[in-house]
């Protein structure tokens, strides 16, 4: 494995995080642009790190917990960068980069997998997994945005106007960014799940057999679809929608951890 890409990734993400924090503290545009630049570099280096690993192991980069977490971090960073460029809003960067960096570092501390891997091959399977992890990344982003919304809303109501509050995105924008992120996640999980059924059908000759992962994934899809619909309705718009989004992500974490590790037979790491 080429450690140069790993080191480069950690360095680029770390610099990016430092710059984002500097931007949140000082509001200097130059610092903000440097943060975005380092994030871009980190994403490129991270991509090559994943590629190197795949080549080294002769398998997909999500073959084990390391690969799965690392791909999740990469897609989270990429999704955030796209949203940042669309909405021209950098104040969320420190929160997202903290998660990206933590996930990337944690993926290296993950224990080696002793179980036989899933017979992972073929483009349908690859897309199924990649889109599923993209959905988790997008949902994670909407979770962060919702938490910021709730925190900022509370500070505004309590008249606690510190330095940071003046630089956080407006509540309306946070709401829109969160919905955009959920929309990406919904699309990815819908297509990814459908591809999963197709792949299982090819493998076993039937598209459905009981796996708790199926149930919880469909539940996640349903919950986020409901969130997307009700977030702009009279009863839910504002803080209630953000709380709903936070709740949904708790279910995603359950799916990603408890269900994967203890209940599912075929979904250990994604």
């Amino acid at each position, binding site marked *: 494995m080429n450690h140069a890409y790993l080191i480069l990734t950690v360095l680029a993400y770390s610099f990016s995080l430092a710059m984002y924090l500097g931007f949140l503290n000082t509001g200097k545009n130059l610092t903000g642009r440097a943060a975005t630049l380092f994030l871009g570099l980190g994403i490129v280096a991270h991509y090559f790190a994943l590629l190197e690993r795949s080549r080294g192991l002769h398998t997909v980069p999500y073959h084990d917990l390391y690969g799965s977490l690392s791909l999740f971090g990469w897609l989270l960073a990429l999704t955030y960068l796209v949203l940042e460029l669309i909405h021209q809003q950098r104040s969320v960067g420190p929160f997202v980069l903290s998660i990206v960096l933590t996930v990337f570092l944690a993926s290296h501390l993950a224990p080696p997998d002793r179980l036989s891997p899933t017979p992972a091959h073929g483009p349908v399977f690859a897309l199924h997994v990649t889109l599923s992890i993209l959905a988790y990344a997008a949902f994670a982003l909407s979770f962060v945005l919702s938490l910021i919304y709730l925190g900022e809303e509370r500070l505004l109501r309590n008249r606690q*106007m510190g330095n940071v509050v*003046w630089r*956080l995105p407006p509540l309306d924008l946070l709401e829109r960014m969160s919905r955009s992120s959920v929309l990406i996640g919904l699309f990815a999980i819908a297509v990814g799940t459908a591809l999963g059924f197709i792949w299982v059908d090819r493998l076993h000759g039937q598209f459905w057999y009981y796996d708790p992962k199926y149930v919880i994934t469909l539940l996640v899809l349903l919950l986020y679809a409901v969130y997307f619909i009700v977030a702009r309705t*009279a009863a839910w*718009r*504002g803080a209630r929608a953000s709380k709903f989004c936070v709740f949904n992500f708790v279910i995603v974490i359950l799916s990603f951890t408890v269900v994967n590790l203890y209940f599912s037979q075929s979904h250990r790491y994604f």
Partner: protein
Amino acid sequence: MEIVLVGLNHRTAPLEVRERVSFTNEQARRAADELRSRGLLEETLVLSTCNRSEVYGVPPEAMHESAPGLSSFLSEFHSVQHDLLSVSLYHHYDQQAVRHLFRVAAGIDAMVLGEAEILGQVRDAYKFAHEQRATGPVLNRLFQGALEVGKRVRSETELGARPMSVASAGLKLAERIFGKLKERSALVLGAGAMSELVVSQLRDRGIAHLAVMNRSVERAAALAKEFGGTMVPWGNWDDALLTPDVVVTSVAAEDPVLLRSDLERVMSARGNRALFLMDLGVPRNIEAAASEIYNVYAYNLDDLSDIVQQNRSARESEIPKAELIIDEHVGKFLSWQASVELIGFVAALRQRVQQERSDFLRERLASMRHLSDEDRDHLESMVGDLLEKLLIEPAQQLRGERELRRKIQNVEALRDLFLPGDDKS
């Protein structure tokens, strides 16, 4: 090449005096012409804003003689008794004058700490004086430095970052909820001076729809017309509050005009779209319990004053950073000033030495008749080379080494020592 500053500001003079000593552009031009034609100043710049009137200049004579003359001139020019004016005037020379201007440009000396307008006013005053050819190399360099200081303080510190008036603090808060107000609509209740100020700020922020409501229909219509808004009839809350995102109230009323029950009804009709309420009335125009309604963000005068106070403290904490930038630029300016003066001094010294050399050789060689013409030329050349060597090396060092120029703080002393009786100009 001294710099002198004479002026007054909001700290030293009451409004009545500031009003009498302020300059229009035409007066500034005339004052600059007169100051130069009377020989009081060689370069002149008048900076006149609501809170200050200052004359910057480069006098032709020794510095301590110029300030009293400028004070008398200001008294005469504005027909204000000298005794009345002199208690309000301050004067600074050289380093103090430079530092004062840089602090003004940075917004540290402003009535509202860190205000942005002053930098534009300094820029305009400099541009005007430059176009009138009233400035020269010293004031050009000084004011270019001041503009650079202003820009750096603005971009590198938080001195001007947060709103300092209740109206602007309120609208900034609204932007925390909605973002830019360009696609938003606002309703202003009341048509007094405070309402006018808020309406003006809403227009500056490009508010898309603006409505004014007042008990006196004529005043509401006049205010709406002046700022391109619409007038809505008083009291029809269900219709009036259906669309606006921002509602500002500044109405003279003993009891609240907007009640929680009204707002709850309206919020239901609005589909719970966020509503920002800014209550600038005393007594309050909005029932206190309104802030408990879901998606209603209500702030009264005390809330906004507290935020302004927090902002003031935050701005004050940025002063040391701004002072560091000012120190750096004062140092740069003084170094430049010293280099110009030193280079002039060295040139004058060379001229004097050449003159002395010619006189000396003519006098001594007159008695050495045994020397041939060739020997005389050779001797003259040797003495010339020696003197050039003694002077050229220090001159080159002065040009190249900023630290050396900084150490030589008093060029006047060098002049007095080496060029006694020499007219520096």
